[in-house]
């Protein structure tokens, strides 16, 4: 059926757009943390400037998905593919915004020296990058096992996040003058932890795509 072939091609296009968005977000997070580690505000600024591409990709997904709903009147899994694309693109867009928030912290800290060498935050980011990759892979391969496995990593993220906060509090107690920077770094930890939550949402979308039921992976 010719019409169905075109529909399948369009659904695949949605999938590819999401994959591109995912790669974009992953890159933005890696770059944002690298820029923070070196307090490189030029690098941070580049991340902010590239956000426009991510927003455009999200718009493309909304346009294509809406067009397919109107023209193809999809049902069952076809409909879920489109609904899931809307949801994942919105999660990815938020993740991109959070990477920008990290870059903005770097720009605010311009000219300062870090109160401690960053170890936990890059470690946290590394774990979250893996979650982004796995959540998208679970969607692309329709692999629910991978989605559940990825959600377990979120527990490790939460643990690492609270450890980071505790360490920063300790520094503030000993060196009250570092309060401002410590609070900024606490926010960075919070942003990364939020990105992980969105990755978990993507995993939920992957499970919903396959089963038609949305689990709560973020508990």
């Amino acid at each position, binding site marked *: *059926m010719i*019409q169905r072939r075109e529909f399948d091609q369009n659904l695949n296009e949605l999938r590819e757009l999401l994959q591109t968005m995912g790669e974009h977000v992953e890159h933005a997070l890696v770059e944002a943390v690298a820029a923070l580690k070196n307090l490189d505000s030029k690098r941070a600024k580049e991340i902010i400037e590239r956000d426009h591409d991510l927003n455009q990709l999200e718009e493309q997904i909304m346009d294509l998905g809406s067009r397919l709903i109107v023209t193809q009147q999809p*049902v*069952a*899994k076809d409909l*879920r593919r489109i609904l899931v694309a809307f949801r994942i693109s919105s999660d990815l867009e938020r993740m991109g915004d959070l990477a920008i928030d990290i870059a903005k912290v770097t720009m605010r800290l311009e000219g300062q020296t870090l109160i401690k060498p960053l170890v936990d935050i890059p470690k946290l980011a590394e774990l979250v990058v893996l979650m982004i990759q796995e959540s998208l892979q679970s969607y692309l391969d329709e692999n629910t096992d991978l989605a559940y496995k990825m959600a377990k990593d979120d527990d490790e993220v939460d643990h690492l996040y609270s450890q980071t906060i505790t360490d920063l509090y300790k520094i503030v107690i000993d060196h009250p003058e570092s309060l401002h920077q410590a609070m900024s770094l606490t926010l960075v930890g919070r942003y990364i932890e939020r990105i992980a939550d969105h990755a978990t949402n993507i995993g939920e979308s992957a499970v919903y795509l396959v*089963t038609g039921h949305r689990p709560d992976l973020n508990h």
Partner: protein
Amino acid sequence: MTTAIQIEQLNLFYNQFQALKNISLEIPQKAITAFIGPSGCGKSTLLRTLNRMNDMIPGTRVEGAVRIGGQDIYGEAVEVETLRKRVGMVFQQPNPFPKSIYDNVAYGPRLHGITSKAQLDEIVEQSLRQSVLWEEVKDFLKKSALSLSGGQQQRLCIARAIAVHPDILLMDEATAALDPISTLKIEELVQKLKDKYTIVMVTHNMHQAARVSDKTVFFLNGEIIEADETSKLFSTPQDSRTEDYISGRFG
């Protein structure tokens, strides 16, 4: 939900050909049940077993039971005329009699012995009101039914079917020959009628089944593949053949 029609282990043969295979199904009362499936899957055949329309086809043999109100309609004591009064039918092509609008609707009640003009007037008006045609024809009741548009003719046929107060209304692709506006009117009408009647419809239009019905039954090669609440069947079908069909992968 109460069951209006209980189909048990139904097999139907046209001579050597088995058109329905081991059908068991419950059709809920005062709800709309849609039969879908590709051509030749048995959906119209099953619909026609519900008021024994297949009796007219030579070489037809039916095994199993179709119970309406607990009684097997293929039982010996059943009179087909009485059955068809309880189970009305509307066809794909509107088929009004070449008579006036009034006489079309009054035909069934007269056949069942009603002669009082006042009573017939009341039935005609009520039936035409229920089929949402009254306002369009109330001043032309003596006009030929054939002068009506296709959509109006189909609503007249529905009025004619409900004039004898059936419990069940069967619709065999009742909107297939109509334009989109007339189709929409019939769909709205059917939604209203389910307050009073049990409706079973065969449709080639899957989106119509999704829009209108409460329960959907998917047929393939004379078998029921899946029967479920419409919203479930169209969102999370349990059988991959159902998913393929409703997603336009075959048929």
